[in-house]
């Protein structure tokens, strides 16, 4: 083994940031959220009801309010 895997990200157009290889996510308030799945989706539209995770709410926003 050659050390920990790098964290990889993919920004979904109009949607969340996919995150692979992370063990935890620290939000703006310093709260630590443990990653429990192989891939997690981080909210980028600020309307999720379970921050920091995406809950699909961006799809009900008008296109101009969705992330790039």
């Amino acid at each position, binding site marked *: 083994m050659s050390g920990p895997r790098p964290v990889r990200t993919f920004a979904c*157009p*109009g949607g969340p940031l*996919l995150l692979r290889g992370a063990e935890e996510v620290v939000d703006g308030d310093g709260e630590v959220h443990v990653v429990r*799945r*192989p*891939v997690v989706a981080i909210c980028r539209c600020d309307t999720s*009801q379970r921050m920091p995770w*995406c*809950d*699909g709410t961006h799809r009900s926003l008008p296109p101009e309010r969705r992330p790039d």
Partner: protein
Amino acid sequence: MSGPHRPRLPAPRGPLGELVLPGLLSPAAEGPLPIDNVRDVAAAGPDADDLHLVLWCLHHLHVDGFADVDPAWEWAPSRVAVWGLLADHVEAELRLATAELVEEALAADGPVPDRLFAMVDGFGGASVASYLRKDGTAEQFLELLVHRSAYNLRESDPQALVLPRLTGAAQSALAELLYDEYGAGDPGRHHSGLYARAMTACGLSAAVGDYLRRLPGTTLVVPNTMHVLGLQRRLAPAAMGHFGVFEATSSGPSRLLARAAERLGLPREVFDYYDEHVEADAVHEQLVFRSICGSLADTDPACVPELFFGAAACLVVEDAAGRALLHAWEAGRSSLLDDGDNEQVAV
């Protein structure tokens, strides 16, 4: 082996079942199923309750089987032929029902993943979750659990059939998604296991097939469509378009159903199952549409109409399934079939 429990083969519901199901109760070596008669009945347009019970049972011989059916039927040539004939019939019906949606998606501009999301978001469709969130009763919620058990107790298994038929980035993404579906190495988070615990906590049987006799064709067509698409190599792109819509129509409704379960005071395990799917499927919808369907479209542009076909098939099938439940509830009756012998059913 998947445990000692196997259901008994259900009774036929019509001419197709009469031709196929009693034959399965004899050893496969005693003789083939009457394929020519089946072809005639299929050509005449069989009743959906009759057709989808037979198709579900034929597929189940590949999975757990039935207590009273010879395992040798699984690969008996006449069983394979009957399955293929009925699968072709279902595929033809789905192509007819989805033609307009597929044309619209093909005529639209933009990347294929965006067009898949647009197809879902523009569809509308019946929402059992909205109804249960606001008005439904606990008994109706349990009926939903029973209907969805035809797939959820075997969640992701039909999609796993497609894994060896993909390559490269699409295969890698499907494996990643399936790993999450099967609990990411933790049996306690296995999705079909979460569903079984929810059913058991409600006093329902979590044995696959126990409620088969109560499930109408509009419910059984949901897993049958997955099997028809998932078991045929030429339909692998359609299976992935279908899977994407299945995931992309799950996160929002799961949130509503988690709240409905709380409102109705159902056991915590029901909330847990749906709550898990809010986050999981917000990830999975991106993985299927972008990493799987997007990769397939890039690698082979000729498969794009098939991605849209599978996606549209999921929408129309799920809509019909949901509508059947809402119609029954609006009329003040159970959405489950009455088989006259409901001893196994606690609902």
